[in-house]
């Protein structure tokens, strides 16, 4: 009996230990978030499944990374948080840049004169811009940088930036912006923008070549090298000269590639042995934005804290129509940022992310990736009245934010393909028949839960040139019926096929069935969507074969033109139609430029290219709108893409999060977020009461299994031999 009691005690001990250990924690047992510093308003959020690889603003080129960089750095320009269409505004500048046009001799000329050789942008840097506190700015008594080491051993006690006991800061100067542009030119930094920007900024290719020849031994002071297109007029004024006219350059000034980098910082990170400890600008950014990085462990979490040197900045007092009603102007005129700290934890799977959000441990359901499909299935159910919030959301006061990013997913025809390509009337009709057969609206409803907008042109919603209603409708695929768009009938598509030489989906000359080949990226397509497409094209008698491949092989096919119909996506860098219309610009064809060009359809049209060149340099206005219309028409008439749509992402916000409007381009919106932390603590406690009966039930189950075993064992031990 004694041993039975002992075994029973052991069985009870395990769950009790779990109970005791868990009860030792502060607050709910299941709280996954580490304790936050007392009195600091902390925003709890998630990183995307892939942690950031680069945080150096000349190297980074991913939205996951922009999420951090644009909270830390202040590029010259930014976007208005609330206004739509997207509106550029000064960020680190006193005003928008002054633009002056120059002729080949460098004389100032008027915009409407035809001989513009250069454009000069003059940037007036704000005097109150200051870098964050950082050891790179710390100085010794002689005024020299404190943390400059001769060898790796000298500074080996410093493993992370917070290890350095002394920090300092200084105002941002025009030269810091110039220095960063020279870093962009330095081939050692492997900036993805070097090739593109070198086409525009005067002197960049030459400086790049020059720097490529320099023997390196530690830090290279780029201030010693001149770049023809850069002129630091004084501490607050910088001139950047670009070739010819490129009005979209101002949008690039709103990207982190043009954020200021202090030469002291560059020198600090070139200390011997620092790179081996990941003490690099690629790991520890140094900026003048509202937040600074205090912890960078991309394996678990990245922590930002309020930059004490951030200049005075205020919540906007104007917004888009409807913003006031949504409470987005409640904080108008208040000092920014609202929060003190932001913790971004790495979350790779949807179930933990969703559960933690529902438990109140994440303030929002995501930052740059909405996990729309995974979330949507859990967050919404189909009820008698259509789509309804899931029961578990009903009492949580969760708000929904939609984000229509300026982006496109599309399947394009290879215009050089002998079957679907070409510019004859028959080929156009064949492509149009396929376009009509592919019911984009049904596709979006089935595979994106209705979260998307079928594209009528290469310009997505929210971008100038995207026209609503009948004016924007693609008349080749839709009819305007009863005040709405209606896809043309399958009978009409069949008729087009007949006229294209494929009656009932068979080649009129050979009798062979028409089979089309779609190149898809393996990860981006499911069997169900392939089955759906089979069914769509079968309505007009066309057979489909899919050729899945990974991105590398798909890229090879683009480069060689070895594709018939391909899938692709494009997320805009800036909210200008040029950034989409260039997807069909002839010289961007990979077969013409012999590079990773954006025109994977290999579309060539003199009319289109001429209109594109004209549109590209025109300022916003009626004339530009006319040129854009000229570009949309050949796209529609030539039926270049099989289908295209703009996905709509859904983000959920817990009730204590305010100012959650999404900005499709700018990720530097953390400073606008406000939290009600009292409500959060109350709700977390309310929603996370542990259910303890399974522990007792488990204990009972173990005892009920162990005790009979012990009894049987003892009976067996005491049994007499038979």
């Amino acid at each position: 009996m004694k041993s039975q009691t002992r075994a029973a005690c052991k069985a009870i001990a395990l769950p009790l230990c779990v109970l005791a250990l868990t009860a030792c924690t502060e607050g709910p047992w299941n709280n996954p978030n580490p304790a936050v510093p007392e009195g600091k308003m902390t925003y709890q959020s998630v990183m995307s499944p892939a942690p950031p690889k680069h945080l150096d603003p000349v190297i980074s080129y991913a939205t996951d990374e922009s999420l951090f960089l644009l909270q830390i750095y202040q590029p010259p320009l930014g976007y208005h948080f609330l206004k739509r269409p997207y509106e550029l505004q000064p960020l680190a500048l006193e005003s928008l840049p002054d633009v002056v046009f120059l002729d080949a001799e460098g004389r100032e000329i008027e915009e409407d004169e035809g001989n513009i050789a250069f454009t000069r942008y003059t940037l007036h840097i704000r005097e109150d811009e200051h870098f964050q506190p950082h050891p790179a700015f710390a100085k010794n008594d002689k005024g020299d940088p404190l943390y400059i080491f001769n060898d790796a051993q000298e500074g080996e006690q410093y493993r992370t930036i917070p290890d350095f006991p002394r920090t300092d800061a200084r105002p941002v100067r025009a030269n810091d912006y110039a220095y960063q542009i020279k870093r962009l030119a330095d081939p050692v930094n492997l900036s993805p923008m070097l090739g593109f920007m070198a086409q525009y900024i005067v002197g960049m290719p030459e400086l790049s070549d020059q720097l490529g020849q320099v023997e390196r031994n530690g830090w290279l002071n780029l201030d010693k090298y001149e770049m023809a297109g850069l002129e630091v007029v004084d501490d607050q004024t910088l001139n950047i000269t670009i070739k010819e006219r490129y009005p979209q350059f101002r949008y690039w000034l709103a990207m982190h590639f043009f954020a200021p980098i202090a030469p002291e910082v560059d020198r600090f990170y070139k200390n011997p042995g620092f790179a081996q400890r990941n003490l690099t600008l690629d790991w520890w950014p140094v900026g003048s934005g509202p937040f600074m990085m205090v912890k960078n462990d991309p394996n678990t979490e990245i922590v930002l804290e309020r930059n004490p040197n951030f200049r005075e900045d205020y919540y906007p007092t104007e917004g888009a129509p409807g913003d006031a009603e949504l409470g987005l102007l409640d904080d108008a005129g208040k000092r920014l940022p609202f929060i003190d700290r932001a913790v971004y934890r790495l979350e790779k799977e949807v179930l933990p992310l969703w559960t933690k959000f529902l438990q109140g441990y994440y303030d929002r359901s995501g930052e740059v990736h909405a996990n729309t499909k995974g979330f949507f299935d859990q967050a919404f159910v189909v009820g008698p009245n259509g789509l309804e919030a899931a029961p578990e959301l009903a009492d949580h006061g969760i708000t929904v934010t939609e984000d229509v990013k300026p982006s496109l997913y599309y399947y394009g025809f290879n215009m050089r393909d002998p079957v679907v390509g070409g510019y004859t009337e028959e080929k156009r009709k064949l492509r149009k028949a396929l376009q009509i057969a592919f019911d984009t609206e049904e596709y979006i409803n089935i595979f994106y839960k209705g979260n998307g907008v079928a594209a009528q042109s290469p310009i997505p919603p929210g971008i100038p040139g995207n026209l609503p209603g009948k004016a924007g409708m693609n008349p080749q695929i839709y009819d305007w019926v009863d005040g709405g768009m209606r896809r043309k009938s399958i009978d009409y598509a069949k008729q087009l096929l007949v006229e294209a030489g494929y009656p009932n989906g068979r080649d009129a000359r050979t009798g062979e069935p028409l089979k089309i080949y779609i190149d898809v990226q393996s990860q981006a397509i499911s069997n169900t969507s392939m089955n759906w497409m089979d069914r769509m094209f079968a309505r007009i008698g066309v057979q489909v074969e899919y050729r899945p491949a990974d991105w590398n092989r798909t890229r090879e096919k683009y480069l060689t033109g070895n594709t018939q119909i391909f899938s692709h996506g494009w997320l805009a860098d800036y909210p200008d139609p040029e950034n989409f219309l260039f997807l069909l610009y002839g010289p961007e064809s990979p077969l013409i430029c012999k590079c990773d060009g954006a025109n994977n359809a290999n579309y060539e049209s003199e009319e289109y290219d001429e209109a594109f060149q004209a549109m590209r340099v025109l300022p916003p206005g009626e004339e530009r709108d006319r040129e854009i219309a000229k570009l949309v028409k050949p796209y529609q008439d030539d039926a270049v893409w099989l289908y295209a749509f703009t996905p709509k992402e859904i983000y959920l916000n817990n009730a204590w999060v305010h100012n959650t409007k999404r900005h499709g381009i700018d990720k530097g919106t953390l400073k606008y977020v406000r939290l009600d932390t009292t409500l959060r603590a109350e709700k977390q406690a309310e929603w996370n009461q542990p259910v303890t009966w399974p522990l007792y039930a488990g204990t009972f189950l173990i005892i009920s299994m162990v005790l009979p075993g012990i009894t049987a064992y003892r009976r067996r031990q005491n049994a007499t031999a038979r």
Partner: protein
Amino acid sequence: MFAYIVRRLLYAIPILIGVNILTFTLFFVVNSPDDMAVSQLGAKYVTPEAINNWKEKNGYDKPLFINAGAKGAATFTDTIFFTKSIKLFALDFGRSESGRDITSDISIRMWPSLAVALPTFATGIWVNICVALMVVMFHATRLDRWTVFVFVGLMSISYLFYIIGGQYMVAKTWRLVPISGFDAQGQVWKFLILPVLVGVIAGIGAGARWYRTLFLEEANQDYVRTARAKGCSEMSVLFKHILPNALIPILTGVVVLIPTLFMGSLLIESFFGIPGLGSYMLDAIRSQDFAIVRSMVFIGSILYITGLILTDISYTWADPRVRLS
């Protein structure tokens, strides 16, 4: 024994070279240096010059295996394979394609992997052995038959089901522990309860059934009958006679795994948000980071070889008749 270990270590060198050639070949069959460059530089606005520049800076501008343009030994040494592989043998893993120090990353990430793998491994073996011995004790009874049925059932369920089911019930529905995460500075144990529990339960079916088979083989031996005849208690028979004699096959399967515990588990780490080496490897494969993949495969090979040597050594401990020579 010393000579034996030295000989085994020398055998390891051609194995490591072979593994390295295989990894290198497989990786570059799927990815060309150009693919790697594009992957690192991003898919937009990438110019051929940028690709060449990246390859040059990262040492991928050479031929893969044979440099026809070079003379003498340089034909083989001035190649991507040689330059990238030779440093591995000095345990210099270099930097990842995105520029981060691999040794530093590994030294940080192996601790979370161990924190999960070690308790899962130790508890799993202990539970499996106890359960298997208990079943052996009731061999040829209804309990035995039902338990084997349950074992087969447990074996047949996907590992993913245990993970998702565990997360759903324990963390989401009952709210007893965090559903995922890791806090190296704080209460680590809180984040380990669920993955360890899932790992142990998921392994019971296969593990206990395997051990049961081993123990049953021993249970029918003469020395067991003798022990019983002498009046030893059943516990004594099981733990003092059967278990030590069944150790050789157990050690064969178990000791080899011990060093590889450092490498972590791909699934557990990914679902429970454990920042270990398993997820490190997975991320590297996804981002086509050959430097990390190569280093991790190399380390995995070394650890596996170490495990095999340790297994041989453990035989001498488990069975004094075994001599390594």
